[in-house]
């Protein structure tokens, strides 16, 4: 199997996402997340060069600046302020969840073989494999971790998976929509960061498994 360059980059992004699963150290998580998003920005730029869709360069720049630099920096400062270093205890131990993530990569490959409408365009199949694997990794992260900050990272990883799927399958959405999405993610993370301060202030911890008031 010969990988196209952007497919190889997408796979790199997927592997970084699986690596996020492998540690409970929040700062390391964030740096992996940053690298993972950089790979996605690179994928976007590469696709722009193949398809000659100039607006994708702008999107790639946006992804790089906002998602892979500003957001990790902001979250890093939040971690410093609330003084939480590691995730208190995952429901599934970190190495095990990393292996589950690797399994999910295989599962995503199986699923992407089956997606109708892509059989003719064989070149984008690995892109969708990577995208789905990133999505599953994000879900695993949200499902297994207790700290609220991991939930935010998991959410961002899921968002990246969806974005990568869109980019590899459709060669990019219109610029307005992409920019809107980026802004939305930025605002969501800002709000989540502020909420984190408040959670820490009111409960003295950021363990979401103890927040069980979400019912009638």
């Amino acid at each position, binding site marked *: 199997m010969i990988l196209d360059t952007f497919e190889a980059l997408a796979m790199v992004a997927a592997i970084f996402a699986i690596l996020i699963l492998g540690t409970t150290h929040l700062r390391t998580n964030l740096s992996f997340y940053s690298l993972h998003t950089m790979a996605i920005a690179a994928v976007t730029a590469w696709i722009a060069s193949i398809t000659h869709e100039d607006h994708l360069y702008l999107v790639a720049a946006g992804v790089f600046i906002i998602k892979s630099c500003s957001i990790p920096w902001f979250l890093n400062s939040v971690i410093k302020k609330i003084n939480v270093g590691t995730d208190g205890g995952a429901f599934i131990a970190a190495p095990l969840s990393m292996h589950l993530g690797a399994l999910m990569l295989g599962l995503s490959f199986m*699923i992407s073989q*089956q997606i*109708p409408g892509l059989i003719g365009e064989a070149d984008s199949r690995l892109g969708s494999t990577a995208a789905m694997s990133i999505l599953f990794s994000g*879900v695993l992260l*949200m499902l297994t971790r207790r700290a609220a900050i991991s939930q935010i990272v998991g959410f961002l990883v899921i968002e990246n998976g969806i974005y990568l799927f869109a980019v590899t399958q459709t060669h990019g959405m219109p610029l307005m929509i992409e920019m809107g999405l980026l802004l939305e993610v930025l605002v969501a993370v800002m709000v989540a960061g502020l909420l984190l301060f408040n959670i820490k202030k009111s409960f003295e911890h950021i363990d*979401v498994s103890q*927040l*069980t008031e*979400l019912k*009638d």
Partner: protein
Amino acid sequence: MINDPTTFSAANLFTSASAIWLGGLAISAVGREKVKSNFLAFLMLAGALLTLSGAAISWNQSIEYNQLQYICFGLARADSLVDPLSVPFLALLGLLGSATAIASPCHTAALNSQGKRGHYWKLSFIFLIGMQQVLLAANGIAFLVFWEIMSLSSAALVASDHIRHRAQRAAFAYLTATRISTALITAAFLWMHHNTGSWSLSAWHFGTEQSLVAAFFLLFAVCTKAGVWPMHVWLPLAYPEPPGPTSALFSGLVGNMAIFLLMRLLLAGQCSHLSIAYAAIALGTISSLWGVLFALMERDLKKLLAYSTVENMGIILTAIGVAILAHCHNLTAIATLAAAAALFHTLNHGLVKALLFLGAASVERAVHTRELTALGGLAKNMPWTMLCFFIGSLSICAMPPMNCFASKWLVYQTFFQLSYANAPILERAMSLAMVGILAFVGALSLACFTKAVGIAFLGRPRSNAAAKAKESTTNGPDGLIIAQLLLAVACVMIGTSVPIALDGLAPAVRQLTHDQFLVGSSLFPIPQGQLALVGGILVSSIYLFVLGRRSAEVKSYITWDCGFGPLSTRAEETGSSFSHPIGRIFSQILQLKVTTEISGKDRRHFPESVRVETFMTPILETKLYRPVMGIFDWLSSSLVRLQTGSIHIHLLYVFLTMVLLVFLGTNI
């Protein structure tokens, strides 16, 4: 389409009636502080009269117009169709709308809060518009939209006294019933659209095999909405609740709208499913028996009337069932008779029930209660109400010179003719049995209304409030009384000129049964009007010459009390004691239990206190609906356990759903 002058003017009349009601709605919504209720009542009356005159103009012909074409409901435009079938219902709407408009100002004047007044006017206008457009709707989509407007506004009317627990319960029960019926109607419409590819109501033909499911959905939807056994439980709760004058609209038209739908689709659509006919006859028969039994036992005046509606809806449904049955056997004459009976009885019942509910509203306004045990002796204080209620009772018991006599006579005729027609022997036997059942129901309803009139209006007042009852707020008869008189006069007029009325209904019946040789007046050969005139002259001359002379010698005595001690109102017969002998016969169905407690030293001869209590457990509610409700409760409380409140579990649900969708989409 709008070339013919009749079409043009009739369409204009209907549209402007709607527009006037819409204007009334806007005025009552915006400027409620300043607007006099007389002005709003005038607008309501104007709309009703316009509807009435539109119906009169388009009496004999079918009119299709699309003046509201700028209103589009996505799949279809708001096309309107006035055909011979909808015209009598529009006329009824106009008449009852006028009565409501006349009765409204004195009702709102008695309301102490401004909010309640605004609520009353707004909902009445929406309700009227909804009903008019339901009758005019030419396609299924427009029908459903206006049906919903009608249902929801009437549910809000039921809930207008929403602070009371009783009204809340009634509103919820009514809402449940209308939701179920709308869901079923929607399913039937979709099914028919799938079959025929058209949304037009007149394009749907129910003679085909595929239409059976839709016909069943429609039948059950109509049974739910009209309050036919066993879906009638909401009816005695909801019918008494709407505020005074609108209870005339509610009781006279809500059930009739459902019957109208059944006639328009199943009868005019030439339904030829024997199973539908049997189901309709069976449900109708049970409903008429059940309704009249419970009406007889009821202690609440308005609930009594509501149960009587259950009975009459049953009779109408039976007649419709026979019409379908006769159509299946190609017995056109009987089908025509049955359709005419159903249509005529629907209209008569709507009129009479509205009259009776206005009478009950008048009683409730004067005495502030509907309990028969607190009424009595109202005849002296409320002569007009007594007269109108008596006329209504006569009519609903099918007494000869009245309108319901003619329509029930037609129902009897249908069964007699079916019993010696060329039909299977079982059906002929059934129709003979039905004659007996109808006679029995008629006798019980006579007892029931004897009780209603006798206990409420005759005898001596059973409470202080009843003794001090005042009929009207002004010196002369006020709006509520005039509205009753209007409807009572309409009842008597239809009753004494049945052949003319039937001639008027002939186009509608022709549309229902496609019988071109029908002569309306030949259906009812009894010269009821002339007989009533002769009888009236005879009775009044006897009164004048024989009894009238003695009236000068009236003396008043004390009633002999059998040596029992001074007579008080407690010695009077009560509603329960009146109906108890019949209730005892049916105590299995009614779950009637009586406990008697006699105490004292020598309890055999000189009891110090006697205490008698009667209990009735509504069997359908306890044996059928409560277990069903229990199952729903249990299901929903088990579903609540899914909602753990933990973020992780909720995320897991999202994730599992996503995985499921991916797997479904990719066929792995």
